[in-house]
């Protein structure tokens, strides 16, 4: 019955198809194409993660990249530790460590969630940003983590982009399905209530603290898993994995696609890359500046992104574009 209801909806069907088509990409055996979509899927997964916090609960998680970086370092530390122990290349696929990257990110989220999610509005944004900076500084300065040079992994594993691609694709799909499911269960309704008016949500019986913590932990898992795949795909991780570039990119992709929707991060990642390609050809080092402008334009004029704008202007699409 539930499965049937799911199939009657165009959004999940379209996205399942799209993911299936993307699964064919490595068959072309084109390394450049694989690399392009690896980057795109990485951003898409991060955007799904960000959207769970920002789009579902309304909390502006500006330091969200911290989970991605922690996932990357988890994979990096595990590979180097195991590699040193057996004095050679890993005897199993290092990508099997990816879920651990997600779990470590979730554990970190669980630790900081209670104090940090008590802070509302702009102060929450600043707090998350500060947490990211602090963590980045720690990894920059602690020798065990490779310090500024980071952790090269190539002694312990070989460069393999195709498994990385499929791991990101699988987690991207999982992130979409989770988003879709969350919005349909009690957790989703509680989060939407928090997004709309947290105080009212409380007087309506929503355990707001618990719900915010839950979504923060779930979102961190996906970002952490993505970061782990990325580190393994690059065979390298360094403090730049907590860098600002991706933080901006995922916000732009989320805003372009449609905050709070399950289709938005998917579409947003594609639009982001289309625009980025156009801009990079003309303005090689300035594209981030343009994206700053794009953020402002979207927030001011199209706050719902593409999905939001379509839903608003074409009546009847509300049930179709989710």
């Amino acid at each position, binding site marked *: 019955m539930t499965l049937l209801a799911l199939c009657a909806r165009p959004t999940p069907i379209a996205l399942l198809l799209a993911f299936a088509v993307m699964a064919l990409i490595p068959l072309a055996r084109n390394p450049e194409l694989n690399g392009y979509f690896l980057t795109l899927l990485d951003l898409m997964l991060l955007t799904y993660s960000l959207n769970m916090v920002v789009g579902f609960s309304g909390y502006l998680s500006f330091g969200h990249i911290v989970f991605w970086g922690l996932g990357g370092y988890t994979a990096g530390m595990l590979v180097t530790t195991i590699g040193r122990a057996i004095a050679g290349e890993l005897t199993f696929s290092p990508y099997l460590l990816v879920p651990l990257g997600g779990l470590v990110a979730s554990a970190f989220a669980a630790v900081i969630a209670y104090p940090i999610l008590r802070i509302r509005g702009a102060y929450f944004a600043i707090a998350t940003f500060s947490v990211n900076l602090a963590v980045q500084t720690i990894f920059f300065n602690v020798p065990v983590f490779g310090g500024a040079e980071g952790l090269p992994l190539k002694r312990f594993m070989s460069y393999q982009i195709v498994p990385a691609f499929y791991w990101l694709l699988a987690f991207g799909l999982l992130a979409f399905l989770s988003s879709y499911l969350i919005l*349909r*269960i*009690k957790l989703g*309704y*509680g989060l*939407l*209530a928090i*997004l*709309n*008016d947290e*105080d*009212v*949500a*409380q*007087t*309506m*019986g*929503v*355990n*707001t603290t618990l719900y915010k913590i839950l979504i923060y932990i779930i979102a961190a898992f996906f970002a952490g898993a993505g970061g782990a795949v990325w580190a393994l795909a690059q065979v390298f991780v360094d403090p730049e994995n907590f860098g600002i570039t991706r933080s901006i990119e995922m916000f732009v992709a989320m805003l372009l696609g449609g905050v709070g929707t399950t289709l938005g991060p998917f579409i947003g990642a594609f639009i982001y890359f289309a625009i980025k390609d156009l801009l990079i050809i003309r303005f090689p080092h300035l594209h981030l500046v343009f994206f700053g402008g794009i953020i402002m334009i979207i927030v001011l004029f199209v706050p719902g992104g593409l999905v939001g704008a379509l839903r608003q202007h074409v009546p009847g699409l*509300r049930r179709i574009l989710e």
Partner: protein
Amino acid sequence: MGAILELQGVTKRFGGLTAVRDVSLAVAPREIVGLIGPNGAGKTTLFNLITGVYRPDDGRIRFNGERTDGLSAYQIARRGIRRTYQVVRPFPEMTVLENLMVGAIFGTPGQGRLLPVEAAAQARRTLEFLGLGGRAETLSKHLNLGEKKRLELGRALTADPALLLLDEALAGLTPSEIDHAVDLISRIRRELGKTLIIVEHVMRTIMKISDRIVVLHHGEKIADGPPDVIARDPQVVEAYLGEAML
């Protein structure tokens, strides 16, 4: 015993200002209590204390015999208290139906707390009851004031609470909307068996629908009794001096 809600010596201070001072009050099941008093008397603050938005500095609050002061707002809500807001606060970016569904999904244990599918059905029934059936798919920010107030009432009702606190549910409504709302309130008690505390400035209306009137003035309870007695109470008339009483 017997009271569904019981306040004993409840006090709330904001800095130097005592917004609610030593208020004691008992409300019986299925009673409609009108809470009146001049602007700033402490009516909304009293609602905030009962619903756990604020904790009393002094005194006790019991709901169904259980101490609730000290519990957080969501825990109190789950025991079966819902409210509406003086300045309406629907969830603006959600549809009318979704607003009511939140009420049902997070309803009182054993009564509300439905799965989303069941909650939608419950929400639709309540919308019919309120005469809002045609507005189910409208974003609530697009409703007019009268509809927003009914939405808040509906959002409270889908939770199936034992006690409803209505903070100026009639203010700003047109005369025909007021008639409709008054009719709804009496049906909420009669057909649904709810207990209500109603804050209202429209004297004629509150006197008509309440079983009992409680008067607050500068945070203190200055009168408590049947409407016709309260209307003649010299202390009450004095509190309202300068304001139109009836």
